[in-house]
Structure formats: C-alpha cells, structure tokens
C-alpha cells in the first residue's frame, strides 16, 4: 500500500526536478530564444553602426534610435499643445467678438501645423485600410466568379497574369492623373492625394486575393458540390453556404498577402508622390539632412515593420474567428 501511496501522492524527487526542468526548458524556448535573438541583433546593429560614417554623421545605433523615438513623441505632444492653445485662443477671440457685436461673422479655422510622426502613422493606416477595403470588395467577388466558372477564369487569367507583376510606382503617375481629371468637387470628401495613394494600394493588392480566392473556390471538394447539386441549391445559397466557407482559408491567405503588399506599396507611393503618410515623413527627413535624420528614418523603418506585423496579426485573428476549422494551425 505504501508503494502505491508514494507513487500517487508524492512523486520521487527525481521526477519532480525533471518536470521542473522540462517546464523551464519550455519557457526558455518560448520567451528566451526570441529575447536572445533580439539581443544578438541589437549587438550586431550597434557594432555595424559604429563603423559606418555617412555624410549625415554616424549611422544610428539602437540607443540613438530610441532617443529619436522619444523626441518624435515629444514633438507630437508639443504640437498637440500648440494646437490646443490655438483653438483655445480662437474660441476666446470669437466669444469676445460675439459679446461686442452679437451678429458678427465668426470664422473658425483649423490648425495648420506640420503633421507629426504620429499623425503620419495614422494617415498611412487610414490610407492603407481604405485601399485594402476597395481591393477586397473587388477581388473576393471576382475570385469567386473566376473559381466557379472556368470560362470566366480563362477570359480573365491573362489580364491578371500581366497586371500582377506591375510595380506600384508604374501605376502611380497614371492614377494621379486620372484622379485629378475625374475627381472634381468643390467640397471634396477625400483629399486627392489620399485617393491617389489608396487607389495605387488597391491596384497592387487586388491580385493575391483574386488568385487565392480563385484557387480556393475551384478547389472545393467535388462531393460537396454534388451534394449542393442534389439539394438543388440556388446559386446564391450555394455560394453562401458552400463556396465561401470552403474557400475561407484560401481567401484569408490571399487577404493577408494583399495587406502586406498594400502596406509596402503605400510607403513607396507616399515617398514618390509626396502624399501625406510615413513615406513622406521618410523622404522629408532624408531631404532635411540633419544629423538626427538617419535616426528618425530608422524609427520610421521599425515602426513600419511593427505596423506590418500588427496588421498581419489582426488578419490572422480575423481568420481564426471566421474559419470553421479551429484546429487548423495558422501561421
């Protein structure tokens, strides 16, 4: 009895330490290895940076980049304070005017300060979301139609194949001119530069979603299609109940590729077209050429990377929520 007792209630010391070791090992693998990886990277970066001298001074190392990140944030805070002060002054002035002459014409102006780094981040995010949304609204239905109908696919495929490898920068002048020509309104809802960037993003991130949706839809299990035919499901119900759920994993693969492409395209487009956003920030800093510029650009580079990573995580989360196969391993 005593032997059973020892086995169940208190495992021998060896087994206990083994289990602790196993857990430690696991924790090390999950958190330790990435930390080591980042540490080594920072070290090599610092090492390389101290050996590169440019006309704008030494290449920024991790420490300087951190300083510049703080600077950029403080500039943003200061700019906000200035804006708040401006609005407070304006309000006071207008109130005073009204007090003196109640029927006086009041002018409300918005603050015209330079957009800060943080502002540019949000501009870029807003632009990429809009472009990606347009692309998705076109690409998913188009992909579904191509996947369902072999004839349509054959008709459209050459066009897709030709436009897919086109660089965003090739589209940019055309999009700019077309937007200027067609989008005319006295009280525009969107800035022209915003639309130019968004459409360029949309044009470039259409293709991965179209192609992956097509593959997903045409790859539906024949048996499931036959079940649908036997049940005589109308086309719309067939698409909704069978085609879309079945193709969801592939559609999301396409959407994630599209969003990643769109984010890269956007930065390039903003740089080239001087449209507001992170791309413009980088270009402005480059032209500015102060001793802090390289560090500030490096902050932007890292921010772009982090945001790209975050966007992909969001898509992954959406995919997990909308996919029926909860066991599927998603990376």
């Amino acid at each position: 009895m005593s032997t059973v007792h020892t086995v169940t209630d208190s495992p021998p010391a060896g087994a206990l330490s083994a289990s602790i070791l196993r857990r430690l090992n696991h924790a090390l693998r999950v958190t330790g290895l990435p930390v080591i990886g980042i540490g080594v990277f920072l070290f090599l970066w610092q090492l390389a940076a101290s050996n590169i001298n440019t006309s704008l001074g030494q290449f920024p190392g991790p420490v300087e980049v951190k300083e510049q990140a703080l600077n950029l944030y403080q500039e943003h805070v200061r700019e906000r304070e200035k804006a708040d002060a401006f609005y407070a002054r304006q309000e006071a002035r207008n109130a005073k005017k009204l007090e003196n002459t109640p029927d006086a014409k009041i002018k409300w102006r918005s603050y015209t300060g330079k957009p800060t780094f943080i502002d540019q981040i949000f501009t870029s995010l807003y632009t990429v979301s809009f472009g990606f949304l347009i692309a998705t609204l076109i690409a998913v239905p188009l992909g579904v139609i191509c996947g369902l109908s072999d004839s349509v696919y054959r008709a459209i495929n050459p066009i897709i194949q030709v436009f897919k490898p086109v660089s965003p920068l090739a589209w940019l002048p055309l999009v700019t001119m077309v937007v200027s020509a067609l989008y005319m309104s006295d009280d525009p809802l969107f800035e022209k530069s915003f639309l130019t960037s968004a459409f360029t993003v949309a044009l470039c991130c259409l293709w991965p979603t179209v192609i992956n949706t097509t593959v997903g839809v045409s790859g539906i299990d024949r048996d499931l299609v036959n079940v649908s035919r036997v049940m005589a499901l109308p086309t719309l119900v067939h698409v909704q109940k069978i085609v879309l759920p079945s193709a969801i994993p592939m559609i999301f693969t396409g959407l994630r590729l599209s969003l990643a492409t769109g984010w890269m395209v956007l930065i390039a487009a903003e740089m080239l077209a001087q449209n507001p956003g992170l791309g413009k920030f980088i270009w402005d800093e480059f032209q500015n050429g102060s001793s802090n510029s390289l560090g500030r650009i490096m902050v932007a580079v890292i921010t772009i990377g982090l945001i790209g990573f975050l966007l992909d995580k969001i898509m992954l989360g959406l995919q997990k929520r909308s996919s029926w196969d909860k066991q599927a391993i998603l990376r």
Partner: protein
Amino acid sequence: MANNYLDISGVGITFPTDNGPFCALENVNLRIDEGQFIALIGHSGCGKSTLLNILAGLEQATSGGAILQGQVVDEPGPERAVVFQNHALMPWLTVYQNVELAVKQVFKGRKSKREMREWTEHNLQLVHMEHALDKLPGEISGGMKQRVGIARCLAMQPKVVLMDEPFGALDALTRAHLQDSLMEIHAELGNTVVMITHDVDEAVLLSDRIVMMTNGPAATIGEILEVELPRPRDRLALAENPDFNHVRQQVLKFLYAKQRNPALLEENAAPKETPASEPTPLRAVNDSEAA
C-alpha cells in the same frame, strides 16, 4: 407489385479521351419497383458509380435514359438523393445544420419553421444521432458521419435513395451496425434504394435484387439475382441459412469465375499458364475495395 417505378432503358455513356472515345456503359436496362432494395455489384471500374451518377442526374447518359415515375431524369434533384461514400458533410456545419440545410431547401414554403425543426430532428433520431446535434463532423466518428449523411438524404424525402458504397470506408463492426440500421429504416419507411457495394455479404443481406455488372469497357448488366430471403433478416441466423449461402455463392461465382477482376487478369497475363476460371479467394473482395 411490378409497377416500373424507376425505368432505366438503353443507358450508355461515352467519355471523350485523348485516345478517342471511351465507352464506359452500354445498353443498361433495369426496371425497379417501388420499395425495392437493389444492390449494384461489380469490380472496380465497371461503371457502377457512373450508372448511379446518371440516375442522380449528376452525369448525362449519351444514349438511353432513366424515367422515374413517368419523369425523365436529366438533372440532379432532391427526389433522387445521394448518400456519398465519404459522407460529404459540410465540415463547417454542425450535424443538425447539415441536415437542416437540406430540409430548408426541400421544404421551403411547405413546412413551418417548427415543422422543419421537428422533421430535421426526427430524421436524426431515425439514424440514432440525436445525441450529437451540435457536434461538427470533425468531432464524430466515421460511422456517425455516415449516419448523418443518411439522415440528410432521408430528410429530403427522396423517391429513390441512391447510395454510392455508403459503408465502404468503415470498419467491419461499424459497417454491420449501419447495415442493421439501414434495414430497420428500410422496413419502416419502405424507400426505394439503389446501393453500390463491393461487399458480397452486404449485398445479399440487404437487397431484394442483386444487379451484377460485367467488366468495362462497355460494361452492362451481366446477371440479376433475386434474393428471396424473408425479412426481417438477422445476420446471425442467415450465416447458417442454406439459401443465404447459395445466393452468396452465386454472386461470388459471377464475380470471380465469370467476371474476373480486370486488375488480376492483367497481372496474370504475363505468365501464360494460369487457370483463368479458378475462383479467387474471398479475401480478394477486400482487395478490390481498397483499389
């Protein structure tokens, strides 16, 4: 009660291939009465599935055709529901939703919401799956999935139930359970059933007539065997029943003496001296199933 419920006449199908047209089926004639249980048996590649697909309307015959209750079969429809070998359940729908999808489509406008729910649940009870309504297909066993597939088929209230090797992918014990369930349901509802099988015992146990097909190309019906064993049938009692064994032997004779497995024939073609008419041992049934 010979009433020509389902009349298959002169059915042939030819597929275009790179080496010219390939004739898979030729001149298949069969009349099926209402409520009959028909087993289609034959070697792999003899066109059984093609014939079933023509009956379902999933494929079009090149010549001849099928008439169900005076109506020509030319497109798929719920009155000729199919049970597929690999259950073909939507993996993203629960057991209940899978059946409900069919019920909603077939009884749209004819049943109230409540009636539809009751009908869905009733059919799942029929196959003893009422305990797993909210499970996804990935969470239940192969036999259970096939039960749901049968429930979905029955829920469409088909005039003919078409089964394409419904138990082929299941282990022997599960298969026996499902065969018993199927016999119960058939006794209760009196459906007309056409079922493809590779399993001789299954064919004899379940069916009223066994339709044996010759080997392709240009396969057709070789022999039709009436199974006049009294129902309800009990597999244990039948094992010792001389009539059962007689029918079984006749099917085996057809399959392994008259229509040897084409795959085996090819293997034996190289050595010249092979007794062409020696019956292959029973184990070969399983081999051809796996093929």
